[in-house]
């Protein structure tokens, strides 16, 4: 599905990612772990196209997409939930969802489906997204991403700031999306437990490089902890 | 520096204007100062053109005292401060023998101290509000008694009993209207309103409502520039016409008519001392020369004629004095004449103004202005209106 090959990127003069390779096979869940500031978000921003790689390649279904604008990548089946509960603050919750559904088949149905997945949003439909609480906004962000029916879902710390019982739900949703719908998922997550439980494989990033990687599953937690302490 | 101890002796230190004018070669420098950029460029560039024409004519006829004129041109950029600065440059750095130009009162007021301090000469070619006389400035445009008062006389003669005054908010309209008020009070004309709009303003709906409501016999218009366009369009759109309520304008000349739109101003009145249509030999020559140089579609106007005249008058003064020196030129000025396009003009050495022939015109269907009334003879300049009884209180 997605191959990141020896990617380098950064901000201005600062190189943040220096040669990272990550592969997300079709239908697989891949977790990326790493310390604060390790460059996880930066990596994802490059994958979705918000940052230009200075070297390396990003392939989607075998095709190099490094030069393609972010909104075109969405058309090819990518969806992105950025870190930090982002939404269009002055648009209503409904408009936030419609925005993505616009121009797609059965747009009303898509919005309804997304709301079924996050029923907490229903009573808030008319409220401006900027007034929602952090957690509400995060749910909105995930719902919005799912409306496009992505084949590859990219999530940056999706459970950050979410109440425990919803976290459990989001986790279940993610696993379900991958298992039932065969969606490929690239997940950045700080909860080692969940990150590994859900993942088919994991990568640990530190100082802009992959410091360790392996197959997922709860069993690998020890390896990961060790990798992250270094 | 020198502190002024005794105010009366103050001026003795003043004459630092040891002139740097170079009269040794076979050419002599003169300065032109006009706004070639900014909002006033519209009007002032036409003056620049006619000054250029005059300079070429003079050079072609052998120059002044045998010296060819060498023109140094400066841009006043429509800012008084710039005029003051650039005038300083023309005098001190370029060492010009005389400077020609300026349009707005503010540019003239800004330059006046510069010319006085350096004891240099400025020729100012535009009708203005009067109440001024400097030995360093020659005024070749009309002062109030050569334009506004004749216009009022004409209106009174036509039986006008009431007037509405509309003007741009600056010194010329305000002073003109002060004179009109005094005149009206003396002659029993009723002033039904006096309105000013900021320069460049384009919304006259309130003012035309007021004018229409006043039912005055005529409007006296001292608006300047683009405001005239808006005023006349909106004047017409509330149903006012030259027949129902004529407008006398003192700042609309031939070159402004197309912009205002002939439909909107045809038949309205103007007050100037010169129109392109004047039938004098000097004017025929002037218009022909101008069109030959700048194009047949160009028109000539009063300020252009006054500028053209000013350069020729200076030539006459210098040749009478036999010198380019400022004090000699000043001394020779009185009585100098020139057969100008508007008719014979004579310099009044008393106040440095010239005699002029006031004319009322009517805008015709070609956008030119036909004379409908003309003063029987040239009028002596009276910038302080000293000869008018009713104006006694105006300038203290």
């Amino acid at each position: 599905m997605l191959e990141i090959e020896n990617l380098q990127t950064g901000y201005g003069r600062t190189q943040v990612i220096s040669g990272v390779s990550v592969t997300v096979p079709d239908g697989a869940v891949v977790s990326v772990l790493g310390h604060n500031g390790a460059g996880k978000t930066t990596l994802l921003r490059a994958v979705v196209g918000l940052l230009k790689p200075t070297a390396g390649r990003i392939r989607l279904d075998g095709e190099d997409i490094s030069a393609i604008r972010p909104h075109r990548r969405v058309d090819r089946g990518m969806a992105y939930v950025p870190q930090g509960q982002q939404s269009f603050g002055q648009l209503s919750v409904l408009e936030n969802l419609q925005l993505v559904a616009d121009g797609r088949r059965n747009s009303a149905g898509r919005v309804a489906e997304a709301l079924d997945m996050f029923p907490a949003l229903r009573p808030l439909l008319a409220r401006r997204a900027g007034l929602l609480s952090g957690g509400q906004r995060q749910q909105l962000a995930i719902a919005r991403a799912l409306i496009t029916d992505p084949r590859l879902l990219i999530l940056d710390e999706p459970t950050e700031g979410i109440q425990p019982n919803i976290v459990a739900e989001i986790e279940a949703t993610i696993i379900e999306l991958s298992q039932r719908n065969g969606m490929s998922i690239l997940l950045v997550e700080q909860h080692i437990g969940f990150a590994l439980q859900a993942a088919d494989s994991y990568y640990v990033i530190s100082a802009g490089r992959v410091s360790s990687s392996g197959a997922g599953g709860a069993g690998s937690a020890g390896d990961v902890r060790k990798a992250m302490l270094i | 520096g020198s502190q002024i101890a005794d105010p009366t002796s103050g001026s003795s230190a003043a004459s630092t204007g040891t002139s740097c004018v170079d009269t040794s070669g076979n050419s002599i420098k003169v300065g032109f100062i006009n706004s070639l950029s900014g909002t006033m460029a519209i009007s002032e560039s036409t003056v620049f053109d006619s000054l250029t024409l005059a300079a070429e004519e003079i050079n072609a006829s052998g120059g002044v005292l045998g010296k060819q004129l060498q023109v140094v041109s400066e841009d006043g950029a429509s800012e008084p401060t710039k005029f003051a600065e650039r005038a300083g440059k023309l005098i001190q750095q370029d060492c010009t023998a005389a400077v020609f130009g300026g349009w707005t009162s503010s540019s003239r007021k800004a330059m006046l101290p510069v010319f006085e301090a350096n004891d240099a000469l400025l020729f100012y070619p535009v009708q203005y509000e009067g109440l001024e006389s400097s030995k360093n400035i020659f005024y070749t445009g009309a002062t109030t008694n050569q334009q506004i008062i004749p216009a009022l006389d004409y209106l009174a003669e036509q039986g006008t009993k009431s007037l509405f005054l509309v003007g741009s908010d600056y010194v010329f309209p305000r002073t003109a209207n002060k004179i009109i008020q005094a005149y009206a009070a003396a002659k029993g004309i009723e002033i039904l309103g006096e309105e000013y709009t900021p320069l460049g303003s384009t919304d006259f709906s309130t003012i035309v409502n007021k004018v229409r409501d006043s039912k005055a016999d005529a409007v006296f218009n001292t608006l300047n520039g683009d405001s005239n366009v808006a005023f006349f369009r909106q004047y017409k759109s509330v149903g006012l016409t030259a027949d129902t309520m004529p407008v006398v304008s003192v700042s609309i000349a031939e070159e402004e008519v197309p912009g205002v739109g002939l439909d909107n101003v045809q038949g309205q009145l103007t007050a100037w001392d010169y129109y392109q249509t004047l039938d004098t030999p000097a004017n025929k020559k002037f218009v022909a020369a101008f069109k030959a140089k700048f194009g047949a579609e160009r028109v000539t106007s009063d300020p252009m004629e006054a500028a053209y005249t000013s350069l020729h008058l200076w030539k006459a003064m210098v040749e009478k004095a036999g010198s380019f020196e400022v004090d000699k030129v000043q001394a020779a000025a009185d009585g100098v004449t020139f057969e100008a396009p508007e008719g014979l003009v004579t310099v009044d050495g008393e106040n440095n103004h010239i005699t002029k022939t006031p004319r009322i015109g009517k805008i015709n269907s070609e956008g030119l202005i036909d004379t409908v009334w003309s003063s029987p003879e040239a009028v002596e300049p009276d910038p302080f209106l000293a000869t008018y009884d009713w104006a006694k209180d105006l300038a203290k």
Partner: protein
Amino acid sequence: MRGLLQGRMGTAAGFTLGAVLLLGVAPAVLPAFNLALLGKFLCFAIVAVGIGLAWGRGGMLTLGQGVFFGLGAYIMAMHMKLADASLFGGSGVPDFMSLYGSGVVPGWWEPFRSPAVTLLAVVLIPGLVALVLGLAVFKRRVKGAYFAILSQALAAAFAVFLVGQQATTGGSNGLSGFRSFFGFDLKDPNNKVMLYMIAATVLLLSLALARQLMHSRLGELLVAVRDQEERVRFLGYDPATIKTVIYVVAAVLAGIAGALFVPLVGIISPADVGVIPSIAFLIGVAIGGRATLLGPVLGAVGVAVAQAGLSSTFPSFWVYFQGLLFVLVIGFMPGGLASLPALVGRRRRTRSAASSPAAPARPAPVATSPDAEEKATVPEEARR
């Protein structure tokens, strides 16, 4: 610590050099006309120093400095008119008042007969007006574009107002035709040199003041307020106060510059205080480098010199040139010329160190602030 000392010495040396050039060399080599012209440019430079503080440092885009410039200038002009009237006319009534007005000096002119009151007012009135305006505006959290447009409207209103008061402010003619300056004859070339020297000295002083402010804690706080005004509140500061202080400083500098402009140029009119001149004040600041100390000064003088040189020879070209300056400098070089060395340096460095991940980081771009030039302005000791 060594860095600090070097910085200090460097500054002292630079300051001395500037003083020698402005106060020693310029009067010696420049002809009278050019010296007076330079004096006028220095007035613009003083305004620019204030704008540099308010805009470059504080993020307050003041499109209305013409108001304060005008206040200072008109106060000085009123005094000079009154003084001339008593010295030369004897009547005590300025000439234009008897020509266009009632011939009676209005009450609010009278205080400015006194030289002392005038000098105080030149500083205090722009300062007070800025204080009231600043408090009113900043306390209500008017900022960014609102503030810019409001201040622009103010400049427009001020100019329209002045034009309308023909009898008391000279209307569109403004005030001109001055003969003496606190008893000094304005025609005397020595006195003109003295005026220039005053302007140069004031400029040097205002630079010193600006430097002190920039490097003080207040300067740091100002940057904090510029970037995250709301956050500053939670630390116990009132951003409105901080902004107002700097706004007042900028206004006072503009006022003093205006007051010096009048005797140097010999006229002040509404055309010098409205919207266009107010924006024109900004161009030099932007070109020189708004957030630096010297950038605004060099930019202001540079633009003025270029204009004096180019505008008469190529009037329409000058307008294009001026427009292009705005477009190119602000659009493509927001740090102004001051950022040029840094830009060139960076390019060179990136070329040589392209692959090193250890290259020092650049700050994230922050809304409202051009980030490129900021680097140069962090106090040395913070770098240790």
